[in-house]
């Protein structure tokens, strides 16, 4: 006959009262106490639009998918290319070339008259305030690590006007990346 306290304990025990998260929390606080190194390189996803190199912070990117058949949405905003199905969710796919003045009008990629997407074309899926959204890019090149010292503000004339979604430039040796505020680009 086990003692009463043992019985009570087993009666009141709930497996979901695990202390795991708390330990993690404690461990997390320990870490921040350590001195912060001055230059933490941040990872950016680099991609191409009309031959230009762009980059966005990778933490905002949820995934990169090949271009599925898109369905055009009638009477939607001009920068909406269409909608796609991603594992049971419907998400809109946007064009940002017009916004960046890389093209006069969004390419026709959905519907019966659409041309085949190029082999390298991808959809970058990002999380926005109102759900997931996809962004059409011509190709995805690499993940680059940029230190704060490698970043510079966008030169005047580039960052202003319609191109307010450009937040700066990243320079790695000879290569230049245009850093985008992806959420701004979607508005």
């Amino acid at each position, binding site marked *: 006959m086990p003692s009463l306290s043992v019985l009570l304990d087993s009666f009141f025990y709930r497996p979901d009262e695990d202390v795991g998260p708390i330990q993690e929390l404690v461990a997390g606080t320990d870490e921040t106490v350590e001195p912060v190194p001055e230059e933490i390189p941040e990872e950016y996803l680099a991609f191409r639009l009309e031959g230009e190199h762009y980059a966005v912070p990778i933490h905002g990117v949820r995934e990169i998918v090949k271009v599925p058949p898109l369905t055009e949405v009638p009477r939607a905003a001009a920068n909406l290319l269409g*909608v796609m199905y991603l594992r049971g969710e419907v998400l809109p796919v946007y064009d940002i070339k017009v916004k960046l003045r890389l093209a006069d009008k969004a390419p026709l990629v959905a519907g019966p008259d659409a041309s085949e997407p190029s082999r390298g074309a991808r959809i970058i899926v990002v999380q926005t305030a109102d759900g997931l959204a996809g962004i059409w890019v011509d190709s995805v090149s690499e993940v680059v690590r940029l230190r704060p010292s490698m970043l510079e503000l966008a030169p005047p004339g580039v960052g202003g006007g319609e191109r307010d979604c450009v937040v700066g430039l990243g320079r790695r040796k000879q290569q230049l990346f245009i850093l985008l505020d992806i959420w701004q680009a979607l508005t």
Partner: protein
Amino acid sequence: MNQAGKALAEFVAEGTEILEALGKDLLVLDQQRGTDPEPDLINGIFRAAHSLKGLSALFGQERISKLAHQAEDLLDRLRLGKLSLDDQVLDSLIETLDVLQALLAEASREVSSDALSGRVTELGTRLANLGMTSAAVDEDPLDRLELDAQVRAVFTEYEEHRLRENVRRGVALFRVRAAFDLSDFDTGLAELNSRLKPLGEVVSTLPSSEPGGASGIAFDLIFGAKVPESELAAKLQGTPAQLFALRVRPAAGGAPAPAAHAPVAQSVAQGSRQSAPPSVETPAAPKKPRKKRAPKGGGAETPDAVTESPVQAPLLRAVEQASPEELTQGVLEAMRMGESTSPPRAELAGPPVRTLTDEPVSPRGPRMENESARSLTQTVRVDISRLDALMNTVGELLLIKANLQRMVEASRQQEGSVMLSSKMWGQELSRETRQLERKLDALQQGLLEARMVPVGQVFDRLARLVRRIARDAGKEIDFVIGGGDVELDKLIVEELSDPLMHIIRNAIDHGAESPEARLAAGKSRRARVSLRAEQKGNHVVIEVSDDGAGIDELGVRDMALRKNLITEAQAREMSRRELLNLIFLPGFSTARSVSELSGRGVGLDVVKNNIGNLSGIIDVWSERGQGTAFHLTLPVTLAIIRALVVGVSGRTYAVPLNSVLEILSVKPSEIRTVERREVLDVRGTTLPLMRLARQFGHPERQNDRHFVVVAGLAQERLGIAVDELQGQQDIVVKSLGGRLQGVRGISGAADLANRRTVLVLDVGALLEEGMSLERRRA
């Protein structure tokens, strides 16, 4: 969801269930108004209040637990006969239920408004004071019963009350003595009890003072029989039971009138709770006041010892601690002044009750929430057998998967000679596919069934509201419910509650006449409002009808003209049906005075929108002087719908089949124009036509014939011209998400096979568009 959120959701779900049960029982009680309430019913309500108290205390919901405790207290007094069930008590109980519901709503949103807290305190006080008015009681009929004082002393308060009640009603009382062997007395006793139950009421079961043999035990059952003694004796044949009648002296026995059960006296009954006699109430009501078991001389004269639980409301305590003189004084005063002037009564009877319960800060917002008949929880109760069936289907699916796997393995091994058996292989594959299809169908069907709930859930909640609305509007209403067992998807049932409430309110507020007006019109005094559900194929039709004044279409027309909703020219051309349809326009209200209940100008347009969102159709019928009926036709489920797949300029769209009335094939020459607007002549009626390609800005094709999908939603009809029909398909509609909410004419997207995504047309929005076009031109 985090721990606390999960716990809260659990609490809200369980609390809602308890309140729902409570509401149902109260409704029964309400219907039996005027007759003696069933003791089992009161006990059920008492237990529900008690479990809610325990549950909310466990989750730290103090306001709920306090109010539930006060309600429990009142019910306890009701149960013990210290309080008679009059209108005032019943109304307070129903209001308590409403407040509890509001509290639960606040708890689920994790807020706590002062207004509601105030209402809780006020209501609690009223509940506590209710009992005081019936404190005066004359002689105790129990004294007329020839029962051993010793036996009587061991009764619980409740048992004593039931016995007293039986004596008062002149029920024949018996002592049933039965001796059992110690080894199996529990089964014997249970059997005896089940035999006695249908014959009357077992008031108490006591161990007998006379031992039942060497290895036996004897019991005395105090039993109030509904049947004559001879029948009782016959029914008890074959059991060890012996019958002894308990005699009752005539009423004019001059017994002392000690008012034994008036809750005036209070003593701290320390250690009074010795081993209680076996009683079904014990587990459910541990806080039940009990009489001291220690035998006392002349137990009848001793006032009941009442154990007050420590969480008693302060005010009640204060009242109870007041000296008996003061209290008697109060009671006498109340009696002198008459019931109607006692404060709680006055609050309940007149309109002031509305101002009391109104939220003083923002009268509209929270009020609307309180009044909603929507349930707070997202849970669905599922019969375990349904889940078992689903589980079985999943098991069979796994079998099919294993078969397919085996086939893959086999084909891989004999890669060289695959041509040889390819025909057989194909046959096997198609057999498995068929199996798979069948099982998937079963799975889908099972899941849909699991989502189904009876519409009665909403009907019951509405019935409670009707009662209040009718009272506030000063109407006498017979509310008839039918078809509550018809099942609909949980989602639809929830979305339905608010529209139904609006319609029923309108029926009571505008439809039903006052009793005097009805009598003058030669109708019965009480108006009849009925709510019925009926399954018709893949649809459920819900009818809300009244036998009131009906809708005055001329009044409707004048109102619409005054509000500039239509022009004079339009009004002249409108048929009676079209005029009736004007009540669905936004901003329309026929009520001359804006009452609190309806007539805010939001109502039927909201109803129409909500029904439209559910892919439903609303129809109105009305005859002046005879009444009004609204018919709501709804699909059984929303999750998976059958759709018509159509092609327009090479694009594919899906039209929910439940809004498709018919499909026509039309030659371009048959299309006419009226004021440059294209219309079709369909069997004598003119049908507005919309070319989907033109509307959506797709390049139009020149066809030698169009297919016209005639869509109907609510009152409107519209022909939608498309290029081709591609067939029907079951689709799962996904919403387009927040970013695309603004796209008009599209309600969502669905995945057809082969990674083809199609957009689902929002027929309601397209109809609106067609109509507004028409209006602009007019």
